[in-house]
């Protein structure tokens, strides 16, 4: 199946965010195309592998590291974050406290892992459980554009693991950014700005309609 000379990449991607925001569900949906309302709480860390046929000449293996929500308070995240080249930070649109925790997760991430060029690893923000958004606290979710720019997120997406919304797109956006980093990493751009929100490939879809 694999053509000769096909390029293969292996990327470690973190999935972080507060307890019960749906990290495991997102991974299960993405990797197994499957949703169950009944997952156990992740303890420590879990691990899944997703193989992407990116294009005719590129295969990408994603190691998805599912970090338990409570780990932010422990001191193992450094070990878990090691060598990661991208991250999803997940919050639950129905619980404000999980959104407030986003910046703490992002700070934890930036403190503990960097790209070889010293830049922060690209992070994509996921507003999960958007199928329940009517119960949500985010009146004007589009303000997230500004939020992402300010906090250094590459992009943001509304997602629903239950209804399969936004996850593929978010992953494509993050992988595209990682690939781009991969190509430029040995030749750092003079402007040196590794994180730009609102690039064409990374722009969040305006107003994803959810059920």
């Amino acid at each position, binding site marked *: 199946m694999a053509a000769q000379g096909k390029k293969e990449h292996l990327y470690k991607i973190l999935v972080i965010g507060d307890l019960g925001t749906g990290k495991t569900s997102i991974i299960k949906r993405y990797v197994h195309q499957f949703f169950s309302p009944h997952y*156990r709480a992740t303890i420590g860390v879990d691990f899944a592998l997703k193989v992407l046929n990116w294009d005719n000449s590129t295969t990408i293996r994603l190691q998805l590291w599912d970090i338990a929500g409570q780990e932010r308070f422990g001191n193992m995240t450094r070990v878990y974050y090691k060598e990661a080249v991208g991250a999803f930070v997940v919050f639950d649109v129905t619980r404000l406290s999980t959104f407030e925790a986003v910046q703490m997760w992002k700070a934890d991430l930036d403190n503990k892992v960097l790209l070889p060029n010293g830049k922060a690893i690209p992070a994509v923000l996921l507003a999960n459980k958007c199928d329940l958004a009517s119960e949500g606290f985010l009146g004007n979710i589009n303000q997230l554009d500004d939020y992402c720019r300010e906090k250094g997120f590459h992009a943001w997406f509304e997602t629903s693991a239950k209804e399969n919304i936004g996850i593929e797109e978010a992953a494509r956006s993050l992988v595209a950014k990682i690939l781009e980093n991969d190509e430029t990493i040995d030749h750092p751009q003079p402007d040196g700005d590794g994180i730009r929100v609102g690039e064409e490939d990374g722009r969040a879809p305006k107003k994803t309609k959810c059920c």
Partner: protein
Amino acid sequence: MDPHQVTASLDVALNNPLSQSEESPWNRFFQDNDLRQLVSQDVVRTFPDNQFFRQDDVQQMMEDILFCYVKENPDLGYRQGMHELLAPILFVMNAEMRDVERDESLTPVLKVVMDPSFIEHDTYAIFTELMEMVEPWYSCTGLEADQVKARQQASLAQRKNMSRDPRTSRPFEDNSEFYGPSSAISRKLDVVHNILLKKADEVLYHHLKQLSIPAQTYGMCVPLLHTFPFPLMLVSTPHTHSRWIRLLFGREFPLPNVLEVWDALFADGPSLVDYMCVSMLMHIREVLIEGDYATSMHHLMHFPTVYEVNYLIQRSLHLRNPSQHPSPRVWAHRHHHQQHNPPSLPTHPSPLSTPTTQLQKPSRPKQAGAMAKQALTSAGKQLIWRREEEEEREKEVRRQPTPRPPLALQDPSPL
């Protein structure tokens, strides 16, 4: 205490909902609510496939027990995983007490001891005992802040010079960066790895050792070296976050087998945990040695089904004290032939030859062990069947695409 109920006799500066004071009953009230919410979030996710844990009163009981435990142990706080240590205890207590409820042959004393109206109380008592044993693996008393900072900077400098090919990524490598080269933990780790493992499986030990030497051989197998000591490392560290240890193998086996393992651990003592880890690692040694990084990680995170968990227990006992505990026969067989056999998943040792568990008789019935022990086996046997059915069902669901009801076929709801 619900401050709504308190009469207005108290100091208003303190007794009002906006007070941030630690002394304020309202402040405590809100904190307690937060804690309950946190606990409840895990409780509702406990053993999702098991109907017992889907019952509201059971979930309430778990929440109350954990809440009280955390209030009694504020320094530790609530840590994810406690709920899954509590669950098997509650399950067994319930099975046991309900079982004897109708037993007319019980002596009056036993009738009192086994009174089902005290399931919650007794479960709490046993859970507290168990937590005493595992607490060091939950507490997160960390390094001194300046140590952390120094290490942070060192690792930053190191990272800048690092190859970023993830195939050579070694997430668990170099624990010294994390724990400090001279920490007691890493010394102990050294002992565990270089003495305990070497003694247990010299082939594997040398294999791993050899891999670690020349940097250019860092390839597919290298992460193995570093994932391998990972669970071992966690055995002996207060920073433990490993699921294996924290849940006392609660996720690695189906519930009935977990009960069997717990029987052994409680009858024997905490030191068996270390050896159980080694025994489990050796059980999947072929996969670890042969597999690539993802395969190894997968097997460490999702331990393959073991049909004869007693075999692993026997082996861990043997590893610790070979003269007292003979090597289980299946293991001896595998051990002699392993170099000639093609790598295969050793997930199914023949069930016929392992002797029944011969634990040191709990002459000093330890902690939860004695009480829980009796009911375990019978409850366990029942569960095996249940579990298999459930797995079958789950597979069935997975095979099908997302079960979206065909909308057109549904009757529009009259309301």
